[in-house]
């Protein structure tokens, strides 16, 4: 076998292959036989949305999560809007949400006719602070919706305690939280209902938009099922004649595509292994980064709340000189994401709520320091190591 080795001190090493922030290409290729079979089945049946594959996915997810009802829809955002409406949100009702999350945690409240009220997050771990929920809830507040971000549940026990005392309904923005459980109960089922997003980069990801609502509440499920298909009552899923059912509610069109359901079913079969691989990679990052000067917090250094597990959807570090580090990694061909650059209370779309910088200092600080590193089952150990090498090199260089 012929090998070529660069002589010591010779030409510079060839640039390493880029490491994208996210890819599922290798997984998809490996699962193609199963995915193809599922797609062919969809073609054979001839119903391409709201059909038999979506029904099958709902059943399989119900088994996997333990939810009584899984309602497949077009996106995690739609699932939140339908959940809020189905749980009885009335126009003008307030819903307490964290000031640090993806926009949908708050925009879904507006789209459902309510008013978001922001609460700050905890000192560590990025979840909403129950004490802040208690402080911001007022007489018009009817619900609280913590978001489970990145790798852990918010302090659900704390939030539920405040909610019980103040008579609030708890809904969960569990869009990122597949696999996360509190005392064995899946995220989204501790309160009255939750959601899943199947955005491609999610722990269980489609190759397009898709989402689902989870609940053990029969009424919430029935209402959401009607709302997702033009407010039509009765059975419509995998049931063509259902399109003539009476319109019982002003609904929307949020039907899931069966081809996406076919992809999700193939990936669901190996979800446990994917979650385990994510965990391995997260631990690998933790070990290399936890004591590194410049790195303020790694996920592994912050234990989950009692009763909760860890499922690493996003590996998010808090770092000094975040933007410079991100630029350094980008120059080295390594993709990162900033979750999130701006807290919700300072988003232009919520300027009418009158918040200013300083209102929720922990959320604001997190936005300055948070950086998500590549983490997905297709990422190799060597690639994760290279990400760490670059981070080590960056902070060493700044201190030299």
């Amino acid at each position, binding site marked *: 076998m012929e090998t070529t080795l660069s002589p010591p001190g010779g030409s510079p090493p060839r640039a390493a292959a880029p490491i*994208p922030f996210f*890819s*599922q*290409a290798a997984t*998809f*290729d490996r699962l*193609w036989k199963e*995915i*193809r079979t599922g*797609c*062919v089945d*969809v*073609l054979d049946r*001839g*119903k*391409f*949305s709201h059909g038999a594959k979506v029904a099958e996915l709902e059943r399989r997810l119900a088994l996997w999560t333990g939810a009584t009802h899984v309602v497949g829809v*077009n*996106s*995690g*955002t739609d699932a939140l809007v339908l959940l809020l409406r189905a749980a009885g949100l009335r*126009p003008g009702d307030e819903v307490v949400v964290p000031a640090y999350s993806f*926009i949908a945690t708050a*925009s879904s409240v*507006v*789209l459902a*006719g309510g008013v978001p009220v922001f609460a700050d997050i905890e000192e560590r771990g990025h979840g909403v602070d129950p004490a802040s929920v208690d402080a911001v809830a007022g007489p018009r507040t009817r619900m609280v919706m913590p978001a489970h971000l990145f790798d852990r549940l918010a302090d659900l026990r704390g939030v539920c305690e405040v909610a019980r005392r103040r008579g609030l309904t708890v809904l969960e923005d569990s869009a990122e939280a597949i696999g996360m459980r509190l005392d064995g109960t899946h995220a989204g089922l501790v309160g009255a209902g939750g959601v899943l997003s199947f955005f*491609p980069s999610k722990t269980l990801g*489609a*190759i*397009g*938009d898709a989402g689902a609502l989870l609940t053990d509440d029969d009424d919430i499920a029935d209402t959401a099922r009607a709302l997702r298909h*033009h*407010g*039509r*009552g009765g059975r419509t899923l995998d049931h*063509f004649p259902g*399109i*003539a059912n*009476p*319109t*019982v*509610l*002003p*609904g*929307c*069109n949020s*039907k899931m*595509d*069966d*081809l*996406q359901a076919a*992809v999700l079913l193939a990936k669901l079969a190996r979800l446990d292994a994917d979650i385990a691989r994510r965990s391995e990679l997260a631990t690998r990052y933790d070990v290399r980064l936890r004591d590194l000067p410049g790195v303020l917090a790694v996920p592994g250094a912050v234990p989950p709340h009692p009763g909760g597990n860890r499922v690493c959807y996003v590996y998010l570090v808090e770092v000094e000189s975040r933007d410079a580090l991100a630029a350094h990694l980008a120059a080295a061909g390594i993709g990162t994401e*900033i979750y*999130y*650059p*701006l807290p919700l209370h300072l988003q*232009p*779309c*919520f300027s009418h709520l009158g918040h200013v910088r300083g209102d929720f200092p922990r959320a604001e600080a997190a936005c300055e320091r948070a950086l998500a590193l590549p983490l997905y089952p297709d990422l190799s150990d060597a690639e994760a190591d290279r990400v760490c090498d670059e981070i080590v090199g960056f902070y060493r260089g700044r201190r030299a």
Partner: protein
Amino acid sequence: MSRVPFFAADLFEDDRATLLRTVYAVGTGDAQKFILGEHTARLERELRGRLGAADVVACSSGTSALTLLLAAMDVGPGDEVVVPAFGCAPLAATVVGAGARPVFADIDPVTLTADPAAAESLVTVRTKAVMPAHMFSVMADMPRFRDLADRHGLRLVEDSALAQGGTLGGRPAGRWGDAGVYSFVQVKTFGMPGEGGVVITDDPALAAHVRVLRNHGQDAARRFHHHRVGYNSRFDEVMAAFQLHRLTGLDDRLSRRAEIASYYSRRFAPLVERGIVAPPVGGDGRFHYVYTVLTERRDALAAHLAARDIATHVYYPRPLPAQPAFTRFAPPGASWPVAESAARRNLSLPLHPRLADAEVERIADAVCAFAHGSPQENP
């Protein structure tokens, strides 16, 4: 004889290999771009060129396209939107979803689309927009709606969700309003194996607004900066790539639909004497999405066809203001006699490009046999 289903199950039979190839290519592609990527942008460009529209914006469904438009036009609480009393739920549900009030106008007895005079009589100081809808195979009277909207300073939203392929006075459906929409749900004329739709508009500012609203109100350049409370109403790359492939066959499929509809209409024209009213052969402002006849003996005709293994469908068994979701928007004592009559009499026959000539003839024979075989209804 085999059963003729109302909806074809084999719509994409000729493109199976392409669809599977597309799923694999997008799933394993280097870009790992799945939503609102280059295929979507190209589909928007192709449709823009085809329609001669200033912009086409792809989103998650035809219904969602209406929702995005109403939001982009700032239709909200306190506003009224005049909509037809006969048609699909989104006509009213999107208005309710925007926080506004749907006001139902009766329809024209021949076209089954909103009657411009009825619509005009409902315009008040609170009216923000008027939203006529094309129905089954006939476009609404868009010149009169354009005139009405201009005279009253109203926004004109054209619900052309099902009318892709239609033109009126040389102008495509979707381009008569301030904006229009198409739905690509599988059964539509440019249907696809998934959910999706587009907004069509000649108003670049409105299009820009819709683009922001379809992706969480997000800044086009700065991710996670949100100018408006927006929606998640995006378009999947698999579907866009597949639709680009399907676009080449669209004209042929539209022609086949027109051919079948014309055949039906020629066969059914004499049946008007026997109480079955069919749409005319061709004509301006037509598109061939759904073929619908009107008859007081609707249920008997449906049963007659069902007994001969021909599936039919009653799209709208009741007017919109009589749907439980919308009764609260029906003023006390108001009635929509033409819409009510249409709801009682409409029956749709199979119409899709994969119907064989023999099937089309069999359906026409069965309808004619029914008309001739049973006693003529009293006028």
